[in-house]
């Protein structure tokens, strides 16, 4: 059975798409920019960061573009004033939730959160910052986990599960207490299941998981890591 081709409008531009595509995929194909943080091509979509929220004409709700399928004659708006305001607010909330200090961060200059803040013109945070003081796990030979910089996008968890297939990482607790854990919340160095593949460090959009002794700009290619995309071609 062939996939139906459908027509829709994104920001007034007529585009065609396959029926099962998501709004984000179609927008990217047509060079329409929708900001994202938790989305990573090749991994399942989470819809957690809410940065990719878009308006669809005829509905009062907002839809996450990364996990909403397109439909025929849909009219999508990606850059209204209220959307921009929501996005700014989301970035400010992310910045206030933990301890984000760019000047002393390994990810400085190759951080997707920083990039997003610059893009949206965030120059201050209107909320009280939490300044969390979670324990840093540096027991692993090459990798460091710093929950204070984590934005809980769960890319590391998804890449660990879906690409490497070991599921060493997961999330514990909920809400503001959520944290990335290794096995049964044990020191990383003691983990039997971790294969030290370092994919988690490669997909981390911020400086929460990084390779010891190196700034992220030295180790991270800004392009999407090949092993994530490579999985689709296999």
């Amino acid at each position, binding site marked *: 059975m062939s996939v139906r081709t459908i027509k829709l409008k994104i920001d007034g531009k007529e585009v065609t798409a396959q029926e099962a595509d998501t709004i984000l995929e179609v927008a990217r194909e047509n060079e329409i920019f929708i900001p994202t943080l938790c989305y990573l091509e090749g991994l399942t979509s989470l819809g957690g960061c809410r940065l990719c929220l878009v308006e669809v004409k005829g509905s009062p709700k907002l839809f996450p573009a990364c996990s909403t399928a397109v439909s025929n004659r849909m009219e999508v708006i990606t850059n209204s004033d209220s959307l921009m305001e929501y996005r700014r607010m989301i970035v400010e909330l992310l910045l206030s939730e933990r301890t984000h200090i760019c000047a002393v961060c390994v990810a400085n200059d190759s951080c997707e959160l920083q990039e997003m803040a610059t893009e949206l013109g965030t120059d201050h945070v209107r909320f009280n910052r939490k300044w969390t003081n979670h324990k840093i796990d540096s027991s692993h030979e090459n990798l460091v986990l710093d929950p204070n910089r984590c934005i809980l996008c769960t890319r590391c968890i998804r890449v660990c*599960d879906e690409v490497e297939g*070991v*599921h*060493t*990482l*997961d*999330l*514990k*607790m*909920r809400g503001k207490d959520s944290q990335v*854990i*290794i*096995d*049964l*919340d044990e020191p990383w160095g003691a983990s039997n*299941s971790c294969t030290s593949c370092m994919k988690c460090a490669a997909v981390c959009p911020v400086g929460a998981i990084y390779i010891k002794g190196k700034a992220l700009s030295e180790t991270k290619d800004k392009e999407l890591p090949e092993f994530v995309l490579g999985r689709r071609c296999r």
Partner: protein
Amino acid sequence: MSPESLHTGLKSDRRLVLLEKVITQHQYQKESLLEILHKAQELYGYLDKDLFLYISNALDLPSSHVYGVATFYNLFKLKKPGTHTITFCLGTACFVKGVEQIISAVERAFNVERGETSADGRLSLFITRCIGACAMAPNVIVDDEVVGGASKEAVMNKINFLLGDGKVETR
């Protein structure tokens, strides 16, 4: 005894037999994780590392996933609770009605912090989010009894009564 249990430090006793039975009843399905965690807590009183490893082996789930699910829910206990447990509701209504003062008073009086158990293992204090009895706020659950419209004095009296009027030994 199944080979799985050999991997963990769980003692083979009646509780483990019962747990194994429940897992078999659920046909080792990954979806039944919650039911099995419930049963494990019912049998052992709380969930520890060995139980997590045993369950993750039995259901063929990553241990981090089992841990993540168990910590997501408030009612799963990861530490051995004391003989008597006092659970304070910290939902919005109870918070507004001043449950915080009751908590800190109890903490001070019995030298136990919230989420912890006293050194002699007789008293545990737990926090929960909304027990759904907002009309009676502030709510405190003393062992299995819900105390609505709780006051500092009422809760203290109940705890003193439970502990046989003697204070919990200070740490």
